[in-house]
């Protein structure tokens, strides 16, 4: 048995853990990441790949905007491509009520400098003549997309080049406090001892939090998605219907990636995320109502994954309420991909400086203490009756 002593230990080798390791190394802290499976193989690797700033609750915008800079500089930072494409993001409305919501959001987001463009039906047709049904939209020019599959591994390699210890297929089996330090036992004989512990364990994060008497009502669900064969490129922005009935983007090589709500079930214990065939069929129908030109292509593959959700559709991000030196970053409710570099940056600031300029109000784990839960309206929209 060997003991690995480090200043910061991170449980979870997804994007959150890897970016945190990267930024902590930039600040000179020694870091070890323990990943039970493969780097970035869960929510980080199977998500839709949206790098979307708009349509977040405004409280998340400062974090999201900080994150975007690192996606824009991804290649410079990691030396690898994540297929980042600054496509812009188009949020489309089908009803006057939805148009009103878009207008309200644009006003609220105005101080954050997103530069949202509100488009009426005529402008929409002029810019994207293949769009049917939509009667209004909000276009966010700074948004984009990336291929999530190889992204976490690229960040892990960058962190490793900067001196981080990244260990995959290493499952943390027990966490204790010993003499003011964290002690992590693993299934491969290595014991990790650290001053600081970051809980970036995704859908499995309660296993870490509960070791310190904390928990959040996290549950696993999956983003049911599918993709078409490559077809000639004509869809430039990533598009999302306000009611979530269809979400799509076309990658440069021509495949159209499609998602839609309600989200599907998944099981973090058995590591299964089945895609219900009837959901695929329903999403196919919604897609071609929105873009009739896609009626002649084919679905070649469906997939889903295991993402951690919380009932108020906000993440847990920040310091533990029960154990100094413990930090949580989990439960990103299907919108964590874009936030990841921001999360890593903010955690590195909290750990090194003891504070961050980015507001994290509303993300405290204590909001769930005593069994308190608030269901977001968004939650009801994105899930089947549970």
């Amino acid at each position, binding site marked *: 048995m060997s003991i690995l002593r480090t200043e910061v230990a991170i449980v979870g080798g997804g994007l959150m853990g890897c970016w945190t390791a990267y930024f902590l190394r930039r600040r000179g802290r020694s870091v070890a990441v323990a990943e039970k499976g493969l780097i970035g193989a869960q929510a980080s690797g199977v998500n839709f790949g949206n790098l979307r700033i708009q349509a977040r609750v405004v409280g998340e915008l400062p974090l999201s905007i900080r994150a975007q800079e690192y996606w824009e500089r991804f290649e410079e930072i990691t030396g690898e491509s994540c297929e980042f494409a600054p496509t812009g993001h188009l949020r489309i409305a089908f009803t006057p009520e939805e148009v009103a919501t878009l207008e309200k959001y644009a006003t609220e987001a105005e101080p954050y400098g997103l530069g949202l463009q509100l488009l009426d039906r005529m402008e929409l047709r002029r810019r994207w003549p293949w769009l049917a049904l939509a009667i209004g939209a909000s276009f966010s020019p700074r948004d984009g997309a990336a291929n999530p599959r190889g992204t976490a*591994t690229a960040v892990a*390699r960058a962190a490793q080049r900067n001196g981080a210890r*990244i260990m995959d297929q290493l499952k943390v089996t027990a966490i204790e406090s010993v003499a003011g330090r964290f002690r992590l036992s693993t299934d491969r004989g290595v014991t990790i001892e650290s001053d600081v512990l970051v809980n970036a364990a995704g859908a499995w994060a309660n296993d870490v939090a509960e070791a310190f008497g904390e928990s959040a009502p996290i549950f696993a669900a999956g983003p049911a998605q599918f993709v078409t*064969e490559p077809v000639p490129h004509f869809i430039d922005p990533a598009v999302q219907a306000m009611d979530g009935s269809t979400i799509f983007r076309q990658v440069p090589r021509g495949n159209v990636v499609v998602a839609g709500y309600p989200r599907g079930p998944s099981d973090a214990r058995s590591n299964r995320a089945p895609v*219900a*065939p009837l959901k695929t069929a329903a999403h196919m129908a919604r897609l071609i109502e929105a873009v009739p030109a896609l009626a002649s292509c084919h679905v*070649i593959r*469906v997939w889903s994954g295991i993402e951690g959700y919380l009932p108020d559709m906000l993440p847990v991000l920040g310091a533990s309420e029960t154990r100094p030196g413990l930090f949580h970053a989990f439960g990103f409710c299907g919108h964590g991909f874009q936030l990841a570099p921001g999360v890593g940056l903010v955690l590195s600031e909290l750990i090194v400086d003891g504070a961050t300029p980015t507001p994290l109000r509303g993300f405290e784990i204590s909001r769930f203490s005593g069994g308190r839960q608030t269901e977001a309206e968004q939650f009801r929209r994105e899930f089947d009756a549970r």
Partner: protein
Amino acid sequence: MPEVAIVGAGPAGLSAASVLVEHDVKPVLIDEGKRPGGQAYRSPAPGLDLPIDALLGTESGKYRRLHARFAAIAERLDYRPETLAWNVQEGKVFTVSGPRIVTIGYDALILAPGAVDRLLPIKGWTLPGVYTLGGAQVFLKDQGCLVGRRIAFCGSSPLLYLAALQCRMMGAVVVAVLDTTSFSRKIGAVPMLLASPRTFARGLSYLAKLRRSGIPVRHGVRSLEVAGAKGVEGVIYRESSGEVRAVACDAVALGFGLRPEFQLAELAGCELRYDAIFRQWFPVCDLDGRSAKGLYAAGDGAAIGGADAAELSGQLAAYAVLEDRGLPVPQARLRGLRRGLGRLRRFQRGLASAFAWPHAWLADTPDDVIVCRCEGVTAGDVRRVAHAEFGGSEINRLKALSRLGMGRCQGRFCALSAAELSAAALGRPHADFGRLRGQAPVKPLPMAARLEP
């Protein structure tokens, strides 16, 4: 009576249907093809007068019997041609036919989807004019067409010889049959091949006929590649003697044995097992085809065995369905079927040795050769991802990081080769590299297809 669905209307599916009908069960028979028969007993398009007896030779009697049997039971079946079973979940088969998605519930499901050619990526294999052996036979048997005027048959498979003879009979010039397994290895397999003397003799007669026709047959061919600029212009290979030769042709039929179509079985809940002789994966089932609860596998999709074995295993699967529901079955007949099937499958294991999958080639596949043709992933890409830190340590990871197997065919034609190639690059056993996890749809699903209410 149980609701039974059968996927596949080749010799296995039709034999299963026929047993069920005899026992007053009316199965749903789901056929991706336009007409029953599957691949071995594919019938020509209506109005096309092909010399079936000549093409099938000794097997033509079986062809006629199978089609006659279908005609006799057609009224007592729910036959659904041109219907793709694209998913199995929660006790239902999801099918698509034209613009309609139809779900079919079942108490028992017999999966008899057959097999496809196993391919090995060689230089030039993605050039227009290169076909799979099975593809070349579809051209011929379905439409009476040839894949080219001057055809080279390459790879290692008993079907190489049969397909070459059939194409020659229909007017093609067969420029060469280039078999990558050595003659001495074939001799070594003879004791196993004697498990079915009749099938063995049939194979020898194909070889003799080719020789009598003056068609060059080469064994132990190496360094095979297809040459051409915009399409096939010839094949280049190294003789077992070491001499490099080139033959001009305008089409190549390529095949290295068969690969079971196990995707539906996996989606339905069958376990899969690795077979070290075939160096590939098969659904786990007993000799009767029992796999998971209510699930039965038959034909080449269960274990490579050929058309005769498919007929026997289809019958056995149907009897297993009946027996598992407490219905009386003729035990003596079952024993006979099992004996016959066991013999034919032992014979196939001999064939797997006589026509070996030249997996060692994949250690030397040049970096610029495309392995995944749907996504354009080369051998070099595969090796780079396999070697990368946090890289492709097993085939699903390799897929995620390289796009291999993400295209239209979903890895059906590249995954086995990619796993061999990566395992060789990393010095690990092939079986360790795993297999691609199945995801629906097993074949492309038209976007405009709508669920039948």
